[in-house]
């Protein structure tokens, strides 16, 4: 993530959460926090407790975030942010918490007098983590048509090309899902499982080989000892935790999308 991207991300994050941008240059951002974000980011529970107890006027803080070191920002007091800084990760987490669930409607233009039906889709953005003593993630965005059961990949990318709105547009009506969203999740999980099964799993085989190798060494180390000491079992367990291949699928975010039926 480049410094420019960080500043853009921050600006959008604060604006969409009702914080006003007080000052902005190429390299820094000063925001007036909302009460809600002050509570979430600034870690001052005693202050908020005090304000709430005494009924005082809340004064949320201003936050200056510096993304570039240049002539203008050198003299500023504020927090210097880069990709690894704890503040940015705190904001990443906040963003993920705040953007987990969604329901949107496609902004469809009615042609003629008839109203437009909008079909329900379940959209999930998922992370597949392949883990042994090493780790890799894969991103997957799937959409499930909650009437036909059809599954579409790169669903999020497709959504980004549409005009979407949180309220049902005029002259539109929604069709009730035949597949319940919770069983829809189940169907998508099965689909993910099939994708994973077809994957190349050399990484897992190699991890198991490393595991067996270390296990053989361990057994050899204690082979002269009739009754194995406790540390043998501790080590055995540690090897399992270190090497055992595991795949975790977690949902980053997702929700319901009511879309116009289309042929493509």
């Amino acid at each position, binding site marked *: 993530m480049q410094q420019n991207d960080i500043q853009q991300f921050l600006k959008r994050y604060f604006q969409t959460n009702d914080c006003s941008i007080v000052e902005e240059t190429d390299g820094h951002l000063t925001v007036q926090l909302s009460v809600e974000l002050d509570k979430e980011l600034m870690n001052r529970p005693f202050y908020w407790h005090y304000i709430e107890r005494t009924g005082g006027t809340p004064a949320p803080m201003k936050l200056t975030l510096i993304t570039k070191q240049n002539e203008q920002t050198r003299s500023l007091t504020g927090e210097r942010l880069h990709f690894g800084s704890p503040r940015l990760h705190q904001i990443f987490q906040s963003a*993920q918490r705040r953007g987990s669930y969604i329901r949107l409607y496609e902004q469809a233009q009615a042609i003629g007098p008839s109203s437009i039906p909008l079909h329900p889709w379940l959209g999930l953005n998922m992370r597949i983590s392949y883990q042994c003593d090493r780790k890799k993630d894969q991103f997957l965005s799937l959409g499930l048509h909650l009437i036909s059961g059809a599954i579409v990949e790169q669903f999020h990318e497709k959504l980004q090309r549409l005009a979407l709105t949180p309220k049902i547009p005029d002259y539109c009506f929604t069709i009730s899902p035949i597949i319940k969203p919770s069983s829809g999740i189940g169907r998508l999980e099965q689909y993910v499982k099939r994708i994973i099964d077809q994957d190349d799993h050399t990484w897992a085989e190699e991890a198991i080989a490393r595991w067996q190798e270390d296990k053989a*060494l361990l057994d*050899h180390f204690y082979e002269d000892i009739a009754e194995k000491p406790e540390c043998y079992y501790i080590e055995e367990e540690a090897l399992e935790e270190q090497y055992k291949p595991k795949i975790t699928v977690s949902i980053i975010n997702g929700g319901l999308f009511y879309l116009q039926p289309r042929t493509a």
Partner: protein
Amino acid sequence: MIEIEFDSSWQESFVERIEKDGPWASWEMYQLALEAAEHLLIPEFDGLQAPKHLPHLTPLPHQLEVAKQVVEQMNGKAILADEVGLGKTIEAGLILKEYMIRGLVKKVLILVPASLVSQWAMELNEKFFIPAVPQKKSYVWEQCDVVVSSIDTAKRNPHRDIIYEQQYDMVIIDEAHKLKNNKTKNYEFVQNLKKKFCLLLTATPIQNRIEEIFHLVSLLKPGHLGNATYFAETYGKERSLQTDEHLKALVNKVMIRNRRANTGIEWSKRHVETVMIDFSKEERELYEAVQMLKSNGAMLNSQFSLITMLREACSSREALFFTLKNMINKYEGNIPSYFQALMEKINAVTANSKAEKALELIRRIDDKVIIFTEYRATQLYLQWFLQQNGISSVPFRGGFKRGKKDWMKELFKNRVQVLIATEAGGEGINLQFCHHVINYDLPWNPMRLEQRIGRVHRLGQTKDVHIYNFAVRNTVEEHILKLLYDKIRLFERVVGELDDILTKMNMNNLENYLHDIFFHSHNEREMQIKMENLTSMIDLADQLTKGEHYAAK
């Protein structure tokens, strides 16, 4: 075939929101959440993610290489055995950060010598943004994810039991050569720790016997060098790591050792200058008067006091006065007459020859200078003396709080010419912007001297460093300087070399040894002979160390 786990935590809340018709995120918030998550995805099994999280840190090529090798080829279990001064802590920090970013490590136990606990915690926080906490209260074990402690604390109950209940993902042990003996409590404690990922840090993986490496490796990866019987039969007692290629290859699978010579780092030069000072008549009389106390055995209950007073007399009359005053207070009015005599001699001294020399030198250097002294009274005096002569300075002490240290460093960097420090301390203050060090008086412990110089002469110093060692002629100082300078050739050595030698000699208490020589020698001749003996021991250790370096290449 492979276990697949579906995380169901998202689902529950989703169903609830459908029932309650919300709350729903905005489209923008939803996209931001996804972008954040995508930035944190780990694209590949290979390579390092940590550097892009740490743009302010510029690891050296060999440090990055070590981190990569540990993660990609050693499966996260390794002995990091670089020579002193090459940044093992940075390597360990990089590796730990890498595993934390990848989500493979969350709970971490870091065991280091007691004196380094806070420094480790600080470096991990400041350089790596790893929220490491020094263990001070016993609830820390359970409540904090990354804990730094001394092994001596950790191995004792109640800590020991609590630690064994934790599920650590990574264990890091600094100064791991202390675990060379498998019969010790420390060894047993570490052996029974669950070590999923593990880093053992040591600059001296083998000190004496080949079994030491066997015990160290067996702690990390039991069986890698066979079991005890097999090892003894195969490699025996007479063999060494250098002569056995097979053993060396095996060890190298779990150990990385970079040497200064082959890191390709250009170290800037050290220019060392001895500055001999002659006492004024009054100062000489004062020094002799202190020396006379030696024959007056009744009054001084320890050799330490006498030698301290001699050294103080070489530093400043203020330093000596301070000690004397404390001693007099203990006599509660019943003051022996020789104290009175000493006080008179102190009063007779009107100028400080050393301080005048320092002033002259500082003016000539006309650049930033650090003055190190052993005594606080001297520190205060020097600050006053320089002020009188139009040179501003700031003091620096080990006891300053972090904030004050940083403030003094800033002042020194931007405003004043001189910093007067009493303690080099391992407190990790880097003063690379300064290139001149005056050792106003010399510490007797060579490692402390090394630490002093290390404040300015370290990795990253681009300019040559000038070191001025002050010593008063015909005093203890001259003896010490001769030993450190001519015999040990301390100042010519590269960083850390002396550390190897002293460890090899088991000579961590060189200072006590010197005290002994000075106090118990009946005459100059005896003292010289003892010094010669010491020098030849050091030479021997030096050769042994060099031999080892040669053979291990």
